[in-house]
Every structure is written in C-alpha cells, then in structure tokens.
C-alpha cells in the first residue's frame, strides 16, 4: 500500500494557496479576453480590460488578484489504497496557516457569533471523498465572501419541474446583480438532499470552463442557462452588457421522489483554483 507523509500535504497546500491567489487560471483569463472582444457595451468592455490588466499586474507585482483571498475550500479525493501517515485535516490547516502568513494573504475567517478573527484563515472547509486508486488529489479554491453571499438554495418540488429550476437560477443571478463581481461563474447543483445540492454547486465551480459534461441533458441545460444568464443584461460589474457570466456549470444527483433541491453558488470573475496530485 502506498503511503504519504502528511507533511508533504502541508508543504503543497502552503504553496498552492499562495499561487492560486496570485495567478488567474488560464481558462478564466482566456474567457475574459474573449468576453472583451464580444462585449458591445463600452463601459463593460473597459471593466473587462481592467480585469485583464489586473491579472497581469498581480503576477508582475506578486500580489493577490483580489484583497478577498477567501475562505479556503478544499475538495480532497483520497485513493482507498493510499495510507496517510499523520492527520490529514491538521496537515491541510497547517498548510493554510503557513501559506496565508508567508504569502501576505488576508485572514478572513472569524467566529460566527463573536466575530473574532481566527488570525490565520483556518479552519479550512475540507470535503473528503474516497475514490479507487492510491493517489491523493487536493483541489483548492479561495472562495470570496461577496459572491458567496449572493448564493442560494431552493427546496423546489416535482411540480416546479425544469422550468422552476431555470426560473430560480435566473432569479438568483438577477437579484445578485452587480454585487458578486460579474462576470463570474455560476455553479449549480440540482437534486440530492438539502445538504448535497449546495455541495454539488460548489463542486461544479471546480470544473474548467472548457470542460464538457458527459451527460447530454446536463450539457444542453448548461448551454441554455448560459445564454439566458447572459441575456439578463447585468454586464461586467453591473454596468450593462451581454457578459454576465463566463461559464455556467451544473452537477446533478438523484433525489427523493418528493423533492427537487436546486442550489446556485455564484463565483466572481477572480475564479481562482489550483490542484495537486500526490
């Protein structure tokens, strides 16, 4: 059985939290550039130009793209034939603590009642899946508060149907308007239970913008909703125009015959993520 020392996890996490916050992923940069070419609204185009310039400067100045360096969200896939030496959760949190200090990242985590800052951006939000194989895959996303606040869950019922799902998604994005820093990525979870749907929505945000869903029905719904969202006219930073989202990704799971949960997780244009496989 393959064995991994969790100290290696700590080192990798400390490195990836810094890199993720500074370098805009290639797919997001390309999508912003394409959006600028296609945007008709001059103010919207100017904003998109600033975002591309910001991404370039962040790398050049070695500064975070955005001051909101997020709540640290991890999706970890652990091979069932991989054995860990040490505490995985502690190792990830140690990596977050080290990376956020060494990388001059903002500490944005606090006690929900007293509002006292924990001081090192821990604890991270860690989701662990057991998978076949002997690898350990760690995916990280610093999730900003502004876009997270605009996300929502609806416990629809079967009679609402697909139309109800579409209506809820569009209504969430419309209500959010300029607040979550459009054009971002819309992550949608359909099905599962009250707890599963938002997790599916968040997982959807980890997919690359050019990733194609295997299920044709989901693929068609993604394409349709992508068009509908971009017809809302919110535009870059709410200035109007046809670029309200850069991508829209859906994940589904079977649900109870009485239920139709839908979750919408909004991601801003600084759609940062990073992954490492050990």
């Amino acid at each position, binding site marked *: 059985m393959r064995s991994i020392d969790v100290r290696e996890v700590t080192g990798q996490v400390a490195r990836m939290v810094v890199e993720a916050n500074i370098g805009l992923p290639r797919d997001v940069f390309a999508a912003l550039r394409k959006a600028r070419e296609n945007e008709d609204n001059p103010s919207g185009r100017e904003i998109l130009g600033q975002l591309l310039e910001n991404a370039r*400067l962040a790398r050049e100045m070695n500064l*975070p793209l955005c001051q909101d360096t997020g709540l640290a969200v991890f999706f970890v896939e652990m091979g069932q034939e991989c054995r860990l030496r040490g505490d995985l959760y502690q190792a990830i949190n140690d990596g977050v603590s080290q990376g956020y200090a060494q990388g001059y990242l903002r500490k*944005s985590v606090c006690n929900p009642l007293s*509002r006292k800052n924990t001081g090192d951006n821990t604890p991270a939000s860690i989701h662990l899946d057991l998978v076949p194989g002997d690898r350990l895959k760690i995916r990280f996303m610093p999730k900003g508060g502004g876009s997270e606040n605009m996300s929502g869950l609806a416990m629809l019922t079967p009679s609402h149907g697909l139309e109800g799902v579409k209506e809820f998604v569009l209504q969430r994005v419309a209500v959010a308007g300029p607040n979550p*820093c459009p054009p971002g990525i819309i992550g949608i979870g359909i099905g599962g239970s009250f707890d599963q749907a938002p997790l599916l929505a968040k997982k959807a945000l980890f997919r690359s913008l050019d990733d194609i869903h295997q299920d044709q029905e989901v693929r068609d719904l993604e394409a349709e909703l992508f068009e509908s969202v971009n017809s809302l006219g919110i535009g870059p930073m709410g200035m109007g125009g046809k670029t309200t989202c850069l991508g829209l990704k859906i994940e589904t799971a079977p649900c109870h015959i009485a239920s139709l949960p839908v979750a919408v997780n909004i991601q801003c244009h600084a759609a940062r993520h990073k992954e490492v496989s050990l």
Partner: protein
Amino acid sequence: MSQEIKLSTPFQEEDVLKLRTGDKVLLSGRIYAARDAAHKRLLQDLDQGMEAPFNLQGAVLYYVGPTPAPPGRVIGSAGPTTSSRMDAYTPRMHVLGIKATIGKGRRSEEVRRVLREQKAVYLGATGGAGALLSRCITGSRVLAYQDLDTEAIRELEVQDFPLLVVNDAYGGELYATARL
C-alpha cells in the same frame, strides 16, 4: 454626457453637486478605509461620547479590507468590498458628515434617499481589481481598531484613484436592471 473629473478630499458640497451618475472620477488625497466591523464599532464609540478617529466632515470612506503589505509596498491588494453590507450604517454616516463612500454593488433605497437629502455620493471602484487599484494608494496607516486587523480603520493616501459615480445626489443609478 458623462465626464472625467479630478477631485481632492475632503469634499465640499459643491464637489458633490457637480457629480452625476456615470461620471468618471480620479480621486486624490486622504480617504478612510472602514468595513463591517469598523462601522459597527465606530458608531458604538460615538454613542458612548467618544471622538471619531478622523474628521468626518466631508470625509470619503472606502469599503476595503486590504491584504497585508508585503515588504517594500505600502499596502497589499486593495479593491472594494460589497457596499450593501454597510447600508445599515450608511445613513447615519452621512448625517455625521461623510460626503462619499466607495465600494461595489447596489445600495439600498434608504441609502439612495439619504444621498439626496444629505448631498452625498456613492462611488464605485472595480471589484476584484485589487492589484491594479493598489497602485493608486501611496500611503497607509492604521488610525484605530488595530485589533480588527484587515478591518481596522486606515487612513489611505490615494493618487488618481479611478472611480465611477454610481449614485449621485440627484437620485441617479448607474447599475443596469436585470431583464427577467
């Protein structure tokens, strides 16, 4: 027709009155960084008869919680945060003399009414452009609430800080309404 205006702080009433929704503003001078926790504590302190840590008359507030300054820089990444979270405090801030706030996103009906009544403006900076905007900040020092860390009140020196007038003192609104 929107215009590009260079302005310096503190604001006088006539500065505010010449601004119209859609105008570009290049702002220079001292502005004050304050977000959620600083607003709450400042108003509590004022209630208890304490003095504000800076002169509120004509002052400009920036809703920002910057990343720590790396060696050799005055500040880290420093873009605007979502303004609506400050809506609960903003009317009182304007009554106390604040003439402009800087953030991103939509303001409440009440805030927009108070802007008209108190002759004040709401200015938008580009959200998520923290590295770009940090280059217009030439000085930063903590004035109060150091224990709040990124949420402390800071005095920032800015030079040609690029802004758009979102809500002017005449009821204007810059943001597009979504077509549902």
